[in-house]
């Protein structure tokens, strides 16, 4: 397999001049017909602080080098120095468009390490969290892609729908974005009937609202022309690059961890794994649209099947007790004190747990040395690994395609940069 061919601009004098001081570059040879364009990190179409150095020949992209790290906050280092419970709020700030699914992914990994299974009611609620997060995230992805190629209306409509989900988050966990909803071995609060009625109302309107977006875009010549056959990747390239999520499925590979390596109660739910074969920007947009409808289907099933029962596992030494019991019972006070100050005592070992988040496979790899803090915690962030395909997708395309391609990858830099 040939290795990447973007070495050339990396070593060029132009690029090093740009990297050194971000200033104007003087070109000695007037006949040199390629130029280097520095796009980002402060650019509205890069979805955050992604920086792409693009080498252009006229309007054609010769090579592109994405630069990451502008939002690097060292979360893996922070994780090594905090207890397992303390890290939960940090997971909100990874993929900040779907905080709930990060919460779930993280606690699943810790629960796998310590060998705790949450009650069924909590599992259903967690599935609903993941699917609401997926819908919210795909809404932004679709809306932002449409905005990037010039259709602002869709973004506003998508945000209107997303706002309804945010309201549900608000009732469910008391926060719209920084949810920190899951706990190791359970959940922070129970699902309420108010959440059920809000979600039912959202789902009742949802199909119509998606159909509205579809009529707006899928018969729109400008949108189709901007997206069709742009950012193509072959099936072999997609697999070789290790892409996951809608990018992989848009290339005709039906990999979905919810079905292939099921976690929570996904094996009991009925849903389709959406694939497309064209592997271009438009196909990825289709896949996301159809996935939202599948998520809505899953949510309806969850609402029907949601069992009664406890939401926290009965493991006094590992699961945080309820606040009112801490204040009134001695045992719970001791357990809470030990859990907060010393952390859970997990076994020595290494675990990896991946979940199918909206961007792709979000995974947590924990190396435990038996103490209350992880020895090493690696975040497998789908956004970063999907961005790796950017040079390949851009090469040979037009400069105006760059924003469409970035929109189709749907990177969230909070997660890519950790």
């Amino acid at each position, binding site marked *: 397999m040939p290795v990447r061919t973007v070495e050339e601009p990396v070593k060029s004098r132009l690029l090093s001049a740009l990297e050194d001081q971000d200033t104007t570059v003087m070109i000695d040879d007037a006949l040199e017909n390629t130029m280097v364009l520095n796009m980002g990190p402060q650019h509205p179409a890069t979805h955050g602080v992604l920086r792409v150095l693009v080498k252009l020949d006229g309007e054609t992209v010769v090579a592109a080098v994405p630069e990451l790290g502008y939002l690097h906050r060292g979360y893996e280092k922070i994780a090594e120095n905090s207890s397992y419970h303390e890290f939960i709020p940090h997971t909100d700030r990874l993929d900040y468009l779907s905080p709930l699914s990060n919460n779930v992914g993280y606690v699943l990994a810790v629960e796998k390490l310590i060998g705790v299974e949450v009650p069924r009611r909590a599992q259903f609620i967690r599935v609903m969290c993941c699917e609401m997060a997926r819908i919210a995230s795909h809404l932004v992805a679709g809306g932002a892609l449409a905005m990037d190629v010039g259709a602002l209306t869709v973004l506003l409509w998508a945000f209107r729908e997303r706002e309804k989900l945010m309201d549900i988050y608000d009732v469910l966990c008391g926060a719209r974005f920084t949810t920190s909803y899951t706990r190791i071995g359970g959940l922070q609060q129970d699902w309420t009937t108010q959440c059920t009625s809000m979600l039912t109302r959202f789902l009742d309107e949802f199909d119509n609202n998606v159909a509205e977006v579809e009529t707006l875009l899928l018969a729109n010549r400008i949108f189709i022309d901007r997206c069709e056959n742009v950012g193509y990747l072959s099936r072999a390239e997609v697999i070789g690059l290790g892409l996951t999520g809608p990018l992989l499925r848009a290339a005709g590979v039906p990999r979905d961890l919810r079905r292939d390596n099921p976690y929570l109660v996904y094996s009991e739910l009925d849903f389709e794994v959406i694939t497309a074969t064209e592997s271009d920007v438009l196909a990825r947009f289709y896949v996301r649209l159809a996935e939202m409808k599948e998520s809505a289907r899953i949510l309806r099933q969850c609402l029907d099947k949601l069992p009664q029962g406890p939401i926290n596992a009965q493991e006094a030494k590992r699961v945080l007790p309820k606040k009112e019991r801490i204040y009134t019972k001695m045992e719970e006070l001791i357990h809470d004190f030990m859990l907060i100050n010393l952390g859970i005592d997990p076994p020595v070992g290494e675990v*990896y747990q991946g979940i199918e988040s909206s961007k792709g496979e979000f995974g947590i790899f924990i190396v435990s040395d038996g103490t209350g803090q992880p020895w090493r915690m690696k975040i*497998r962030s789908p956004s970063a690994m999907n961005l790796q395909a950017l040079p390949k997708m851009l090469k040979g395309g037009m400069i105006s395609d760059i924003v469409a391609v970035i929109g189709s990858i749907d990177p969230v830099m909070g997660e890519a940069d950790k």
Partner: protein
Amino acid sequence: MSMNERILEKLRSSFPESIESENMFRNDLTAQIRKSDILRVCRFLCDDAELAFDMIIDLVGTDMYRPSARFEIVYNLYSLKNKCYARLKVAVDENEAAVDSVTSVWEGADWHEREAYDMIGVKFTGHPDHRRMYMPEEFEYHPLRKDFPLMGVPDSIPLPRK
């Protein structure tokens, strides 16, 4: 026979000397491979028609902070055909902190290896674009090493000129 046993059996028969240890924890398979053989083993796992580990999901560099074999590199592989994961592990000594790059097997290992180099400072020989991933190129430390302080090193990142 479970998939994990099948993987181990094939590895044992093809590379009897390369496997230093095997470990199963929570049904996750980890095989520790001799450092010099990692590229061959990866190539075999990827090309083998039955196992077909065609995706690299993750590559983790860990600082174990011990006198010998200080670093560990963990390769987390996925087989689309069998829908299963497998982990390979390589122990790396501090004095010769370099491993063969597996970018020739999976292109996707590129950024993973850059990240591991950035964070713990293990070099990957044969990597096509061996730069840091997150930290600035002139940064001289590797932040995920255990001897790097949580608060960082003062003045280690130069501020932009006014």
